[in-house]
């Protein structure tokens, strides 16, 4: 099995001496193509640190991060930036769309930054928006979009082009339950289409969309859910739900 992202014995320490904080301790995590993994834990458990390290935005104090078959620490700064632009998509709680750009321009931006010609980038962005039922909103600015639409645009931006890894930090935190569910359906669909997904959250409802839930406590992976039993064990006739 080929892991899209793999953390091997990753530790992260901020500060030193008496102010030293161990944000992550000896974390192993591997996510395959097509798999959606939720990392669940309370505030301060190291979830967001784990996501920034998996996304190569930060380097761990110890351990190895592999994206595809490449050891990230061996890449040059430029190669790492290129890997981030081409292979990794990020979704944040507050959408992080650029206000002066339309939906389609927001989605096309990472492709253009990577050297794709404007027309080709726009075509790919329109296709990504259409897949998320947003073709009609392509020329709207972020302040003309609802919260649910904004997060769908952010997902389109995260999966446009040839991205293989989708990283999301509390992606439904700013949405009501109906829009939150719609967003998680899209994340799940992206994973079914071959993307590896990692969602960090403290919300059990959101985590329950994942194929596997990994529990983080004080920077350590303490547990994970077993693979789902099949066929359905809960909603069978005679079973009390």
């Amino acid at each position, binding site marked *: 099995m080929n892991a899209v992202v793999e953390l091997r014995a990753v530790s992260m320490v901020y500060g030193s001496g008496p102010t030293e904080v161990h944000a992550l301790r000896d974390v192993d995590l591997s996510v395959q193509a097509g798999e959606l993994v939720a990392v*669940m834990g*309370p505030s301060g458990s190291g979830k967001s640190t784990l996501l920034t390290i998996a996304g190569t935005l930060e380097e761990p104090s110890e351990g190895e991060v592999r994206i595809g078959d490449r050891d990230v620490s061996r890449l040059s700064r430029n190669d790492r930036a290129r890997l981030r632009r081409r292979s990794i998509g990020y979704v944040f709680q507050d959408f992080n769309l650029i206000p002066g750009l339309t939906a389609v321009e927001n989605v096309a931006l990472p492709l253009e930054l990577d050297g794709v010609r404007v027309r080709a980038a726009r075509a790919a962005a329109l296709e990504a928006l259409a897949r998320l039922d947003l073709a009609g909103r392509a020329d709207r600015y972020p302040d003309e979009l609802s919260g649910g639409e904004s997060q769908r645009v952010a997902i389109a931006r995260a999966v446009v082009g040839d991205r293989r890894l989708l990283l999301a930090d509390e992606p439904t935190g700013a949405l009501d339950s109906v829009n939150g*569910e719609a967003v998680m*359906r899209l994340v*799940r669909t992206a994973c079914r289409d071959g993307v590896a997904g990692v969602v960090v959250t*403290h919300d*059990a*409802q959101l*985590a*329950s*969309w*994942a194929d596997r*839930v990994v*529990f983080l*406590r004080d920077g350590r992976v*303490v*547990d*994970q*859910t*077993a693979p*789902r*039993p099949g066929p*359905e*064990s*809960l*909603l069978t*006739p*005679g079973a009390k*739900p």
Partner: protein
Amino acid sequence: MSVRHALLALLSDGPKYGLQLRQEFESRTGEVWPLNVGQVYTTLQRLERDGFVESEGSGGPQNVFTITTTGTDELAVWLRTPPDVVPPPRDELVIKVLVAIGVPGVDLPELLQVHRRRMVEAMQEYTHVKGEMAEDDVELGLVVDSELFRIEAIVRWLDAADARLKQLAARPARTPAPAPRIGRARTGNRR
């Protein structure tokens, strides 16, 4: 769950046979609560005895049931009566955790995690059902959501318990709390 009132609800849009009522009951509850035919007929007999329905026909499966005015009134009252929200006298999980605090050698965070994992696994199963069902299957969606919110409440309680027990771990030693001194506390605490 009240089968009586569910049957009255099904009869509110027109007369029906017993078998028909069973089928509609199951489809309206997302096929989660199976109901046997015997239960349907016994309940219908009682509803008729109480004047909430009337029947017509040669008996058994041939009988057609119709809701009466009294039945319609009873249904309206039932729909608007809030369910009992008083907690069960003994919540097993709460008792387990409370008891565990005094048991030597029990790793409390680990104990909470065992229960949290099982609850999240159950939520994953329900969410999987929701993910696979047709998005317009409102009945099944309602049933699944209700279970998800119920289990989520348990997970949130476990998270809160975790945070509280951290405080307990930080406490130096377990000493019995002094008996409350009713009536004197206010002046006694002032310096």
